[in-house]
């Protein structure tokens, strides 16, 4: 678009570009990795951060929203916390430094830093498309993360928690994960903030779900009110594989969670469930694209949003059905409770269909709490604020219940309840 004209860089853009020059000597990886980084940064420099003129960033003007970027803070200190679910195996990344110890049997882990150093990572450091600002920032600065392989046939009894704790500064991490054929696992990707200092965290997870694997991946984002969080999950689903992806956003100042997937094996099933609890001044964007590339695949997406205060929420969801992907069944719903006049929510559910023998649909609603529901509860002596909280809770709890495992549901419900108490 404006590629020929040199852009005037914003403060955040300048910090990013300068930081690259400053850090270049210490970023892990040489040769191909380094040149991949250079290419990504050159693109970032050339195009700047995306504005609303870029269609996929229409509702999240990153250039305007990312006003400042905190400098890397080598003195920042962060500590492990207890896992969300008792008995989980924990792999932690504290302020961007990954500790590959603690993997359960059947799971091979090494730090992504090693992949960067030995050059294996070079192939990962590419842009998804011309609008991939997250891939660009992350790829330029990535220092660590995990390379994980859940071996064929492995069935994990307990969840595997990827615990990402940030206290200040910046962290850029990558997680290439392969789930071997017929493996079963639940992974909890948990983002925590342990201080009020602003931070910038970017993550890219590349998931390969092989034939017949059954995977549940939960993203629980609880960053601080001053934090920016740019995350991307890419996945590829093999034949008869199933992936359930739960995204729970309950924090952060500027949050963009992208999910991009393709089904490459027949009979695969994908589920996206999202809960966005948005309060304060947050701007939270969940952007999702799914390509049904082969016949006989199914997907459902249900996103529930609750907005208080001056929060801004965005959901963009695109389902593509390739020309030969007959018998695709895809359904998407985005429901929003807009509870404040100062909050706003934008939804863009998209269908792009090139095959005829399909069932595809989407629905989107935006509404306040139903007054008759409220009346029903109040008529039974429940005070208004409590009644409202009950109704909001019921609205999002439906999603949590789908996890079915009580040990996971309980702590998530507790987090939601605490959040609602604070904001309602």
């Amino acid at each position, binding site marked *: 678009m404006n590629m020929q004209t040199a852009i005037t860089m914003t403060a955040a853009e300048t910090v990013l570009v300068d930081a690259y020059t400053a850090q270049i000597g210490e970023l892990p990886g040489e040769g191909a990795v380094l040149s991949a980084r250079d290419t990504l940064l050159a693109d970032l420099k050339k195009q700047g951060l995306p504005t609303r003129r870029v269609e996929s960033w229409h509702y999240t003007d990153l250039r305007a929203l990312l006003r400042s970027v905190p400098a890397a803070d080598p003195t920042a200190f962060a500590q492990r916390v207890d896992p969300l679910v008792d008995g989980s195996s924990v792999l932690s990344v504290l302020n961007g430094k990954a500790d590959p110890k603690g993997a359960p049997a059947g799971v091979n882990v090494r730090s992504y830093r090693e992949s960067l150093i030995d050059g294996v990572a070079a192939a990962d450091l590419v842009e998804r498309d011309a609008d991939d600002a997250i891939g660009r920032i992350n790829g330029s600065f990535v220092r660590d993360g995990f390379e994980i392989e859940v071996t064929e046939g492995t069935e994990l009894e307990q969840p595997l928690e990827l615990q990402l704790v940030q206290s200040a500064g910046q962290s850029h991490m990558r997680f290439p994960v392969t789930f071997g054929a017929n493996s079963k696992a639940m992974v909890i990707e948990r983002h925590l903030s342990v201080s009020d200092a602003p931070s910038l965290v970017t993550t890219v997870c590349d998931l390969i779900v092989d034939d017949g694997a059954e995977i549940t991946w939960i993203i629980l984002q609880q960053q601080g009110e001053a934090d920016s969080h740019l995350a991307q999950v890419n996945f590829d689903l093999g034949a008869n594989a199933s992936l359930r992806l739960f995204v729970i956003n309950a924090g952060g100042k500027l949050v963009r969670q992208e999910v991009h997937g393709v089904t490459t094996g027949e009979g695969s099933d994908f589920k996206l469930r999202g809960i966005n609890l948005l309060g304060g001044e947050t701007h939270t964007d969940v952007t999702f694209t799914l390509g049904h590339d082969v016949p006989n695949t199914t997907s459902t997406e249900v996103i529930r949003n609750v907005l208080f205060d001056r929060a801004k929420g965005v959901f963009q969801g695109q389902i593509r059905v390739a020309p030969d992907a007959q018998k695709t069944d895809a359904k998407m719903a985005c429901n929003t409770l807009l509870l404040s006049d100062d909050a706003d929510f*934008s939804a*863009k*559910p*998209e269908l792009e*269909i090139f095959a*005829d023998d399909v069932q595809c649909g989407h629905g*989107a609603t935006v509404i306040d709490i139903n007054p008759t529901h409220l009346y029903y509860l109040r008529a039974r002596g429940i005070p208004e604020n409590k009644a409202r909280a009950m109704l909001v809770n019921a609205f999002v709890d439906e999603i949590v219940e789908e996890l079915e495992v009580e040990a996971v549901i309980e702590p998530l419900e507790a987090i939601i309840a605490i959040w609602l108490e604070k904001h309602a």
Partner: protein
Amino acid sequence: MAAVQETIDQVALIDVDQYKYGFETKIEMDKAPKGLSEEIIRFISAKKNEPDWMLEWRLEAYQRWLTLEEPTWARVNYPKIDFNEIYFYAAPKSTPGPTSIDDVDPEILKVYEKLGIPLREQEILAGVKTPRIAVDAVFDSVSVVTTFKEELKKAGVIFMSISEAIREHPDLVKKYLGTVVPTTDNYYATLNSAVFTDGSFVFVPKGVRCPMELSTYFRINEKGTGQFERTLIIAEDSAYVSYLEGCTAPQRDENQLHAAVVELVALDDAEIKYSTVQNWYPGDKNGKGGIYNFVTKRGDCRGKNSKISWTQVETGSAITWKYPSCILRGDGSRGEFYSIAVSNGHQQIDSGTKMIHLGKNTSSRIVSKGIAAGVSQNTYRGQVSTHRKAENARNFTQCDSLLIGDKCGAHTVPYIEARNSSAQFEHEATTSKISEDQLFYCLQRGIPTEAAIALIVNGFVKEVIQELPMEFAVEAQKLIGISLEGSVG
């Protein structure tokens, strides 16, 4: 599966080449040289005896247009338009302004006859019991004849060509022209503002219920002429008007550009109903030729409790890029959009609506039915938004797509933007093919496949057809039939 195969076979047989209205009339034309420049705009303005302010308005738009870039966001593909290869003005030569229907070139009348337009007053009057229609027929940019002028005059309704209105009612035109679609609006609207050649002007004064349906038939005729219509409809307080627009164009080899602008203004308690049946030449079966239809249509519900309703049946054009919208400015105003978009052959449609809720207690309703066949691409693109102050905004949107054949595409791109907690938005979209169950049910009762598909498709679009005025509903159903010939009865 047999029935599905049959459907596909039948769709494959559809010969979009056999465009029913693809004839060409040989009438002497008065043309400006090809291309666009200030001189051409001065020429157009002079040809139409326009006042200076109008010329300035055009030139300003032209200067603006030169700075704009052609939009590329729509899901349509076409070779770049060479604006220097287009005739921006073409008028039938025989018109020093016909005074009665007998003065009109019989060639032109024959064209309308073939189209079945009830142009002759006596024909209309003969059908005493059927509702009467006033026709302002547009034949390549210039209004040829206007009927029923007298009766409308009695009611106080002004219905004339826009060029006439610029001369006769400059104050009204000046007051409203460009207030809904400003000259700076978008690439094609700006182009239209610079070069528009004709169109209709309707003014319904306070408290008047327009005594008849107003109707215009657009027709693009001369080779290589872009047609730039400008329509302006104003309904004053408590007025009501129903306007019908129908289009057919003859077969052409090269692509023709059509960039119209339609502006509607509804004041307090006024209601405007705007219906379109568009059946321009869609190109041949290899995707050659056909009309480029890049239209900006927008209604402004300016007054309290005003209502604007768009109904469209889009079956023609090679490329359609059209978003009839409503700005719900007045408190309690209401916007409606009902659409059937049928694409076949190599047609590409990117159409939808915008409902912008600005006033309090505003409501809108969108029902869009897309039917894609052949190798066509059919996109619904729509926006529903509320302003922060727009309390109790209410929207219901339903977009359904039906796919016939596995080479076509149906897409839905809605933008839903809520800025107020009292907003209540519902949106749903579905895409599927003709249900096997429904087909089976019909076949089992001895209904042949073709008739069964016709029945199902008609059921699919019924909700929208019902919104059309009677006369149009019949034509629309016929057009859908022609468009899907082979698969639909």
